[in-house]
């Protein structure tokens, strides 16, 4: 899933191409006789989604009208549908900052009273909360846990164990580097690593996030953000990322980890099932510890970005929609839908999925240190790609750390202005 983040920028232009737009020319319309579900075309084509849709219709509880919108224009089109009174009954959204455009309180039903809420994992609940303890969606989505995945075999060979604190992690990196071992695979051409470090900064301090989103605080003014950027710059200087990290991209990560060239990387578990190719080391040689990016001493895990099913409370079929969500949240149904899917469970009763051993082994630590994905979803104007570019410039000594931070903030403000965010 996070691979999408990496390649999103690369395909952004292609997605915005006239060809893609022309595909929207036949916009789906809500069907008054069916339950209308609106989502991104690619999301609605996920196997577990098609399975649950099919299962629902086969159950005879009703018919579904799947309103697939092209990914690139999803946010704009969806707002258009709601504005023109063509809103769906069920609306899928990743609960990022764009969701604020939909007038949450007056549009979507609060689902706290639904029976399935207790079956949600804590992280899933937190993700689907509107910030006021209201559950506003059913997280029917694959998930993953992001953190520092390390080669436990290699570390053991070198006489080391996983780190429990940032200080330990620094010592581990220094000791590994001193042994000539590249500690961290840092794919500088990718863009997700920093958000792991930023999550606890804003997830643990909602007021700071709100201040940032009101443009009252700058990214460059937040000490933890400064610490993180400085740590990354120092790590690169000390050789903790190896020699060729500036040229390292998505396709290089697997090779570096499976060969033992690098001992660790900041990634998510499902990546091992989708992109990792075993070499000298296999998936069994890896384990998970928190991501240490010098923002919090204990490190952090990032929970998955979940696609929520939300109910349009103004819809005539509101009850039917709520019933659909309950259908999906039934263990029998979600186990059938997620069977064989490599994912971290959002439901406590999910057993048919493939859950990585790495996550299972670190579950105790994850339960204490996991944060909801916050930076990429909640920071207005956040652009992972911009940060990656600026970091590369920092690595090349084009900017000082202070200049890099200042530009990060300027870019964020620029994007927020482009989005027409209030306060910018």
């Amino acid at each position, binding site marked *: 899933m996070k691979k999408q983040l990496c390649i999103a920028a690369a395909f952004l232009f292609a997605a915005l191409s006239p060809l893609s737009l022309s595909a929207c020319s036949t916009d789906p319309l809500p069907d008054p006789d069916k339950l209308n579900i609106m989502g991104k075309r690619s999301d609605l084509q996920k196997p577990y989604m098609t399975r649950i849709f099919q299962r629902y219709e086969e159950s005879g509880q009703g018919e579904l009208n799947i309103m697939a919108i092209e990914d690139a224009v999803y946010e704009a089109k969806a707002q258009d549908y709601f504005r023109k009174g063509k809103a769906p009954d069920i609306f899928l959204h990743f609960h990022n900052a764009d969701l604020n455009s939909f007038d949450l309180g007056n549009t979507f039903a609060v689902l706290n009273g639904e029976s399935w809420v207790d079956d949600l994992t804590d992280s899933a609940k937190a993700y689907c909360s509107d910030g006021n303890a209201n559950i506003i969606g059913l997280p029917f989505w694959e998930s993953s846990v992001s953190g520092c995945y390390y080669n436990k075999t290699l*570390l*053991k*060979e*070198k*006489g*080391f*164990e*996983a*780190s*429990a*604190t940032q*200080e*330990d*992690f*620094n*010592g*581990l990196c*220094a*000791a590994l*580097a*001193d*042994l*000539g*071992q590249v500690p961290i695979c840092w794919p500088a051409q990718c863009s997700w690593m920093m958000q792991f470090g930023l999550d606890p900064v804003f997830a643990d301090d909602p007021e700071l996030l709100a201040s940032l989103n009101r443009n009252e605080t700058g990214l460059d003014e937040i000490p933890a953000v400064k610490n993180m950027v400085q740590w990354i710059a120092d790590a690169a200087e000390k050789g903790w990322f190896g020699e060729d990290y500036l040229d390292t991209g998505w396709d290089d990560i697997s090779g570096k980890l499976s060969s033992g060239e690098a001992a660790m990387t900041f990634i998510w578990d499902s990546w091992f099932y989708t992109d990792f190719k075993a070499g000298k080391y296999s998936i069994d040689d890896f384990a998970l510890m928190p991501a240490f990016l010098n923002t919090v001493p204990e490190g952090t895990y990032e929970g998955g970005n979940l696609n929520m099913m939300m109910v349009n409370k103004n819809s005539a079929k509101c009850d039917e929609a709520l019933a659909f969500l309950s259908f999906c949240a039934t263990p029998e149904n979600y186990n059938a839908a997620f069977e064989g899917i490599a994912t971290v469970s959002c439901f406590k009763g999910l057993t048919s999925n493939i859950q990585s051993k790495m996550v299972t082994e670190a579950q*105790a*630590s994850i339960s*204490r240190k996991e944060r909801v994905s916050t930076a990429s979803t909640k920071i207005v104007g956040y652009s992972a790609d911009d940060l990656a570019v600026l970091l590369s410039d920092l690595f090349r000594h084009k900017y000082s750390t202070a200049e890099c931070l200042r530009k990060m903030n300027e870019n964020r403000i620029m994007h927020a202005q482009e989005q027409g965010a209030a306060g910018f």
Partner: protein
Amino acid sequence: MKSSPMKKWLKYLIPVFSILIALAAVISILVYYFGLISDNIESDGRHHLKEIYGQVNHSFSAFIDKNWGLLRGCNDYFAFFADSNAPSEEAEPYIKAYVDGRKEVWGFSKFYFLDKARNFVTSEGETGQLSLAASWDGVIASGRDIIASEEIGGQKFTMFAIAAQAGVYKDFSYEAIAISYTNTGIAAALNANAFDSSAKCFIISRDGSVLFTTFEGGGSYANYFTYLSNSLAAAGIGEKRQKEITTQISQDMEQILQGEAADGEGGYLQTPLGKSGDVHCIVYMPVGGGNYGDYGDYFLLSDVPQETVSKGFLSAQSATMWVMLSIFSIVGVAIIVLLVARIVNQSRRSKTELRYRERMFDVLSGSVDDIFIMLDPESERVDYLSPNVERLLGIKNETVKKSIREMAKCAVDRNIVVPKEELDAISMNGNKHWECEYMHQATGERRWYRVTIYHMDINRVKKYIVVMSDRTLEQQMNQKLQEALDAAKSANEAKSNFLSNMSHDIRTPMNAIVGFSVLLDRSADDPEKVREYTHKIMASSHHLLSLINDVLDMSKIESGKTSLNVGRFSLPELLEELGIILLPQAKAKEQEFSIHTQGTPPELLMGDKLRLNQILINLLSNAIKYTQVGGHIDFTISEVEASPQYSKLRFIVKDDGIGMSEEFQEKIFQPFSREKNSVVNSIQGTGLGMAITKNLVDLMGGIIQVESAPGKGSTFTVELSFALAEPDESGDTWYRQKITRLLVADDEEDICLNIREMMRETGVDVNYVTSGSAAVDATVRAHKEGNDFNVILLDWKMPGMDGVETARRIRKVVKDIPILVLTSYDWSEIEAEAREAGINAFMSKPFFTSTLWQTLKPLFPDSASPIPEPVAPSESVMEGRLFLVAEDNELNAEILTEMLDMEGARCELAANGKQALELFERSEAGHFDMILMDVQMPVMNGYEATKAIRACPHPDAQTIPIVAMTANTFAEDVQNAFDAGMDGHLAKPINMDAVRKTVAQLLHRNDSQENQ
């Protein structure tokens, strides 16, 4: 004398060899010294390291003892409640309070109550299970105290545990109690952060498992031996050696634990570690030292970079070295300073003397015009250069210093180069010299130098000392003497030539005069012979006279006594006068003589008209003279440059006559130059005319050029600048005279266009036609339209209908329009016919507006002047006239009397000016018609007499014409005559034609005035 290469090498080899030996000795001493120091440092470092970690070990074992003591104290306290069989819930608050109090004092993290299965409950009530691994085995059974590493909730702790009296806490039955510390807590308790953070201090078990480490971030270390092997491998140490080292440590530990080693001595080794390969010191000792058995199998191991260990010793050593070095340096510097001061003093004294000498030499050489240079013969490097080079030769000192060869650029003759071989050939203390002329590069001033090069040996170094001795004055003096000599020779030669020329040129006509006079005397009875001889005598006399005039004129010009008499003159008038003089000559040879203007040259100029006249007459008369009968002479005037104040005029005299050779053209302007060929020899000439012309042109600031080829004619071009004179008439003169339309008829269209262009400023509308018939048609048409022309200007000689015929036909239509004839020819022959045909006046070409105006003025009713009657020289003008002749020379007086008599005139003679004055004063009004006044006379000269006459009260005093008749013929003489009040000037010898013309003009003027 040149030294051999071997000697040269030896010269340098010995000191170099000495320095190398000294350097080697110093290096050897230093190596030995540092080797000794290093051994000592290593020995001291090892001792120091063991001492430090012995203390750490002691502190750590004391810390363990204290914790175990603490746990035993707790056990005793808890045993009290166990023994009392007090209910668990009653004892708990006391136990918790007790534990909390100990935690506060000791700083441990948690207190654990444990059962055999390693399940625990903390004093806070938390439950769980510890691993404690193998170390736990037998703790309760044997009552051993243990230390163990434990991870609880993802964080590492060090546990201290003892077997305890069985008891119950929070319903949990326990048989052992334990406390846990975080690594940071233990490190703080141990105070083991020696050697800053560069040392890694571990507590490890015999198998290498790390209990804890004080190293920052060391929580990740699992097994020290594994880490050590990897670290050795990273340092490039082979597997065999890796194994030896790890085995050595492991075996040492085993021996210690087996009691085979000295109590608590531990081990020490040095080895490179890590990627950097830096040497580390590894020291290890059993925890507890001599009592190691009491603390299990744990070892205190420290890994410290050798550099860090030796840092203190090295710094002390280096401090000592620095102190020593400083002392030696200070002493050395003091000695050097003293030596340098002495040397500097001596050097300063020498330099001061040298500076004085240099300064004195600079001043000396700066004030003379001699140049001094010191050169290196091999490299040509300039060692010294006197500072006056730039002043004398205009070349910068720096330039010469860079390359002595730059001096050669100042030499006038750059070919004077002394070959290097010649310089090399100068013997030691010998010299070579030559003379050379140099030129100042900025001013061009030339100087002569005697250049002497001395070959010197200065301090065994070969040098050239170059002395350039200024010989300019001497050279100039010699040159002047030579020039004076040459001038004297030249003058003498010129004088001889002049006399020779004069002798020849004067004797030739004189020979004819004398010869024909003799023949005349013998043939007095033969009228034919008399007439012939008289004519030849007159011709020779005229030639002799012109020769004398030219010689005198030339003499005056060359002596610089000629001055220009600048005045206002009219170019048209000048050209008209030239025409009057020259047209008859050209006509006599049937030559076509034409005067043209190109463009619109200005008419009124400021200049010396007389001299300009002389120049142009010389050129034109030569052209006529040296052009065959029927030839062509073109005289063109054009303006080549113009400004509001000045005008540069170009006069071109072109003929198709005999031309000149190139050789002669080169000396045509030299006096007495005449081409020698049969044609020229037959033409009389003095050979001075062109020389005079050239001198006059020069005097007027102009140029004269000649282009010629034998048989093809010659072209003389003269360019002269003149200031412009203010015009007489205002711009609207023509308009006021109601002259607005002019018809021009000339077969040459260029002339018509030229006239129109010249008339543009007048505002007169010029129409032109190119034939007589067209002129008639135009006139008729204009008349019919009631738009008559105001003036008609006709060319005389037009193809078909000529000017006279055209005028005749025009007069049939219009009667009162002035018709003028424009011609290059002498119109006297046709004047009567022309006037009969209705032509009012004649104008000579070229056309000028002022000439037209002057011609037209008498023809208009309000004109102040009447129509002028042509004045033609006539013999009758003299007849009956009475002249007062003032002449002191009786012979001249007699000749003049006879000549006047021949003209039918009479005269009264006066022997000087005073007599003339008296005669005039006594005469009645109108008695004398004119006074002919000699200038140089005794008693009263002609000028004084003229002034007196003009000043006397005689009725005719202001009006009677007085004409100078003198041998003073220069321009100044003429001007002086006019200034004295005379009206004309006639040069002696008397030319009766000139007399007649002058008399006619003056008498006519007077007659006109009387009529008015």
